[in-house]
């Protein structure tokens, strides 16, 4: 039976089966994960020619390589002969991959190099069987995105207004570039991927789920999402959303407050930024990093970068690393330290978020009531000066934006 998404996704509520039905998950793989642009990594992870790292797009095992021409390649980790994995190591440097099963070899662009005992195929160069390649690969601010669709919107079209948030992150580096070179914490959740995505810009939960750590550390984060906060939740279109906290940081008016610190702790960094940006440096140092969810799987929470990867209808892996600002070594040490304290399996924030995802997954299995409510702040939503829907800091504007785009993709005619 065909799923009627217009019935399951309504303006102010969504149906529980969206999180539990394996048929819907299978359809999501085809219509979202193997079609739209999905973030797989960052160019800094493969800085030199020959570098490679293993990645995943949903259940697909991908090798991200940098070939001698400097290009980024996304190859499927599957020998063209019998389907064995051609790459076992998580990372390394090699210009080619050799399948251990029968010794077939491939360049790190995916192109076939050779096969042993070639007389069995009538000699050398008779086969033209390459590793599978992700049809479209593109980068933005160094983030590498994959699309399994041969045709469709460009990455720039897909990112739309979210591109500006990635720019805002890169701008925090004195060299205008971020790097993701601190390795990854991979955190497994027994929950549907959409529960993670919806939570990322849910400004309603921090005071409750994270009250424990805010209390013991005296953190001001909770107040950024309180009823008195001037921060907003913005639907950036195409399923992207953000918690825009800039108005609160401007109100506090001090450089580096966004990072929970003061400028005297990072004199070199602050001086470099002022030399580079002149009068604009104060805004940059006060407003700080974005808190943005890029549909469907890239989440930037100020100092941490997350990539969400679904494995099954009720299983998701969230990988996370610390933002590293090129040209700011003293900032980078604190970024790693803060990231470790906050995120990953033992993180003082994310362990509790993940507990909520998992309890939520068990909850939505319940037969009554069938719906999840997403109406918070509908009555006070407005259109901002750039034409985007905005709600209060703790409104569900981001979720509604996500579901609107999700429904569009799930109802679209399937293309190649």
């Amino acid at each position, binding site marked *: 039976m065909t799923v009627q998404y217009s019935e399951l996704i309504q303006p102010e509520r969504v149906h529980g089966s969206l999180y539990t039905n394996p048929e819907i998950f299978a359809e999501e793989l085809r219509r979202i994960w193997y079609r739209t642009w999905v973030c797989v990594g960052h160019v800094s992870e493969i800085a030199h020619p020959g570098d490679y790292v293993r990645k995943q797009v949903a259940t697909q095992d991908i090798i991200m390589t940098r070939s001698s021409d400097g290009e980024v390649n996304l190859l499927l980790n599957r020998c063209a002969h019998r389907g064995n994995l051609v790459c076992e190591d*998580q990372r390394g440097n090699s210009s080619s991959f050799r399948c251990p099963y029968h010794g077939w070899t491939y360049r790190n662009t995916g192109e076939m190099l050779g096969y042993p005992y070639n007389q069995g195929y009538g000699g050398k160069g008779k086969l033209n069987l390459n590793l599978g390649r992700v049809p479209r690969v593109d980068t933005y601010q160094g983030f590498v995105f994959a699309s399994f669709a041969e045709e469709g919107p460009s990455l720039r079209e897909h990112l739309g207004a979210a591109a500006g948030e990635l720019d805002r992150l890169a701008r925090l580096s004195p060299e205008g570039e971020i790097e993701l*070179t*601190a*390795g*990854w*914490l*991979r*955190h*497994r*959740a*027994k929950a549907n991927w959409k529960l993670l995505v919806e939570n990322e810009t849910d400004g309603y939960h921090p005071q409750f*789920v994270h*009250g*424990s*750590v805010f*209390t*013991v*550390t005296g953190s001001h984060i909770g107040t950024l999402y309180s009823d008195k906060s001037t921060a907003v939740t913005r639907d950036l279109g195409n399923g992207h959303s953000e918690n825009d906290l800039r108005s609160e940081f401007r109100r506090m008016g001090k450089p580096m407050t966004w990072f929970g610190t003061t400028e005297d702790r990072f004199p070199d960094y602050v001086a470099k930024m002022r030399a580079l940006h002149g009068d604009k440096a104060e805004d940059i140092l006060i407003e700080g990093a974005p808190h943005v969810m890029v549909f469907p799987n890239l989440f930037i929470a100020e100092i941490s970068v997350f990539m969400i990867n679904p494995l099954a209808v009720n299983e998701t*892996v969230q*990988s*996370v*690393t*610390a933002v590293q600002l090129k040209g700011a070594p003293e900032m*980078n*040490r604190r970024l*790693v*330290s803060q*990231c*470790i*304290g906050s995120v*990953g*399996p*033992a993180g*003082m924030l994310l*362990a*509790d978020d*993940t*507990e*909520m995802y*998992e309890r939520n997954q068990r909850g939505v299995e319940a037969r009554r009531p069938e719906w999840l409510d997403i109406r918070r702040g509908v009555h006070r939503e407005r259109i901002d000066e750039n034409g985007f829907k905005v709600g209060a800091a703790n409104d569900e504007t981001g979720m509604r934006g996500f579901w609107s785009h999700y429904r569009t993709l799930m109802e679209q005619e399937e293309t190649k």
Partner: protein
Amino acid sequence: MSSVAAEDTALDLREVEAFVYREARLADEHDYDGWEALWTDDAVYWVPAGGPDIDPVKQVSVVYDNRSRIRTRIRQLKTGKRYAQSPPSNMRRVVSNIEVVGVEGADTVAEANFVLVEHRERGTVLWAGRTTYRLRRTEDGIRLAYKKVVLVNSADALPTMAFLI
């Protein structure tokens, strides 16, 4: 055994065992105050991710706590609203293959294997790995200066690990 002084302060295997078993029991039983009191002021509590030999200053770890962050972690657990441990996991660990591997300054360095079964409503998780301890004799008794836990699956995706490992 680099000097006479080191030999004077070094712990023997029996002392190491007694300490390690007590530390394990306090962690298993969520005796947060008792566990926190075991640490020295220069403590390092480290669970690397992605492999055993990463640089914890430049690479992300599952846990990399100094004494101050251990205190924060314990205080968070004690709020009762650390939901990933509220209700707390039921767990028991077996620590074995204990070896004293050397002396560093005033500290005795020991290593051991462990297997830990964790159960909570989400399900049962089997944790295992090798732990390095640095133990120090102080006026208040033996204290823990360093604990590094290398999980056998440190390079894989892990479930939530909000308890004391």
